[in-house]
């Protein structure tokens, strides 16, 4: 048997084994991570969306390119959401003229509930209602509150689930300041 042929056979065997081992590793890896598969990861492009706020103004994420954007998903029944909302509002006042946008995204509640909630807390940043849960699904938001930080290039900088303290919000907003 000539040497070249043997070499060829060895390479073929290496190639076949490599492909199959890669397939096994891939299968095990993805199955192991199946349960916490986040459709979204830090560094991904933030999915674009368009929702109308309580004043009738349309907010389209792509219009805010060049600015830092904080998305806060919330609901009136969610206690930690209620707790962090005033802190977000205070930080909004501080950062709103520094190229930062804050959007509160309510999950499919009635306008009455949302307005009475925000009026009571004196929320100044725009609040939109995700009636069809489309944005919630696009961002794979499950437990509330969830906060997504998007940098000026439209990439996701950070994903926070659970209540935030005012100091943390301050740090997060500084991190996405253009």
């Amino acid at each position, binding site marked *: *048997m000539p040497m070249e042929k043997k070499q060829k056979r060895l390479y073929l*065997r290496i190639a076949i*084994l490599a492909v*199959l081992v890669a*397939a096994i590793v891939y299968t095990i890896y993805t199955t192991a991570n*199946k349960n916490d598969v986040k459709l979204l990861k830090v560094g991904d492009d933030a999915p*674009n969306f*368009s929702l109308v706020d309580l004043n009738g103004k349309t907010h389209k994420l792509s219009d805010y390119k060049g600015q830092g954007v904080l998305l806060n998903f919330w609901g009136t029944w969610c206690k930690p959401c209620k707790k962090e909302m005033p802190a977000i509002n205070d930080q909004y006042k501080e950062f709103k003229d520094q190229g930062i946008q804050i959007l509160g995204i309510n999950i499919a509640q009635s306008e009455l*509930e949302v307005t009475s909630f925000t009026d009571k807390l004196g929320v100044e940043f725009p609040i939109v209602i995700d*009636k069809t849960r489309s944005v919630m699904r696009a961002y794979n938001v499950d437990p509330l509150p969830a906060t997504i930080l998007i940098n000026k290039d439209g990439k996701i900088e950070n994903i926070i689930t659970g209540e935030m303290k005012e100091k943390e919000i301050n740090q997060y907003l500084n991190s996405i300041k253009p």
Partner: protein
Amino acid sequence: MKNITCECGHVNPEGTHLCEKCGRPLTEEEKHAKVVDMKYEGRAIRSKTYNKTIIDKIWNFFSSVKVGVSIIVITLVAAAIGTFLPQVMYVNVMQGEDAKQAYIDNYGTFGKIYYNLGLSDIYSSWWFQTLIGMLAISIIAASIDRGVPLYKSLKNQRVKRHESFMKRQRIFGEKEIAADKAEESLNLAEKKMKELKYKVRREDGVLLAEKNRFARSGPYINHVGLIIFLFGVMLRLMPGFYIDESLWIREGETASIPGMDGYYLHNNKFTFETYKKEEQKQEFNQSKAAVNSIAKNYQSDVVLYQSKDEGIAGETQDMKKVAHHAIQVNKPLKYDGYALYQMDFKLNELKAMNFNLVNKKTGKSLGEVDIDLTEPKKEYDLGSGSKVEVKGYYPTFSGFDDGEPQSDSPLPNNPAFIFKMYTPETPKGETSFVAIKQTLEPLGTTKYQMKFQNIETRNVSGLTIRKDRTLPILAIGGIIFMLGVVIGSYWSHRRLWLQRTNDGRLLLAAHTNKNWFSMKKDLDAVTTYAHLPLWVDQQEEDEKEMEEKEGDNTL
């Protein structure tokens, strides 16, 4: 590597049983055997030819049939154990409970052991998947190592084989014959075998008739099918190939569909019907009707919309209606590779509440207020100077916190309101807190009240969204697999060798990989016709001899 040089001068690789060129037996074993082992045409199985590098060693491990069978057995046993108890995804886990507790509650100590050993999610375990992967490697390595030499050997086979090869075939016969008679026999044999749809090749004094060589490829074809099938199953893990999501959607609601970007679903109506008494068969009425009625239909009437730009979530301005369908069990709405199935339902969720604004003393009504619980209005004008303002709405009222009503869910499970009622009699307004079976007047006694009249309810459809792009791949894999099985089972590779020796004999040998009966039928047809030597089945002879030696066991 040691090569084996045959007497005919051909150099064979180590491990060859029968010379690749002339068919002479090369190993001591084959030389002494009455019938040679024709598996893989006596070619060296590739893995056995060299064993130098680590890659070769791994390859040879997987190429072994023993290893392959062991992997199959272990996989089957593991898969069987996985069916002892329901897998974790099918176990009903109560809220606030973990899966382990559910196994203990349902199945006791055995359930606990089962869970702790990780058998409750066996098919997702790394070791089960490794087993399947090893099975794939084994199938590929074993097929290549055996299939390639077999293919080459059959492709390059010579018409003339050595006498020792022919003698050791299961079917063999010989007789003395004159040269001209032998030639005539070969001519007749060629004619007959061609009639029987054999391909006939001839050289000086030798003949090879062959039929259905492709039957030998059956096992290799079905291995290809298996590998495609496994690949299809693996593809399910890749994003976009397999979607299995669920959606709860209320009547009148429009919701985005999980897993279907850019699509929205509107639920017009959910219907649950049972058979009426007169529709049911007599036997059902006698026994079961007393306990419960039998379901006839679960149906969601839905409309599917597609947004103009699927890249923009929440964009519901310019939606296009693309389908409307009555989803019933086994009649899904199918669109663009997706299928929406009727899976579950909830009946009679609160939708609207109807109140009457009445004077407590006189009972005189100033008008009715119909409150849509999904979108209550801020203010309801009753005309003639009366109106009701909704100051607060609590869909699932759960008590007061710091004097303020709380709601712990967005669903109207236990709605409560704070109303401010204005009438010509009470122009400044009166405040009242109204919940189910509870009315509070926090700011003093009121003259008027919101008297609960009735409720409207609606149903909720539970749908499952499925997409499986791997189905065509699985189908192709399955078809190829079956094709291999059919080819391997229903056709047999048959060969007949005839040879006139220099010392004036005519040799006959025949081989088939299965169905010797048919081979013998073909032989019977040709031997008399072409005056060929009488043949014997050497294996059957052996068996007969054995039986005779063992004597009568029938006692």
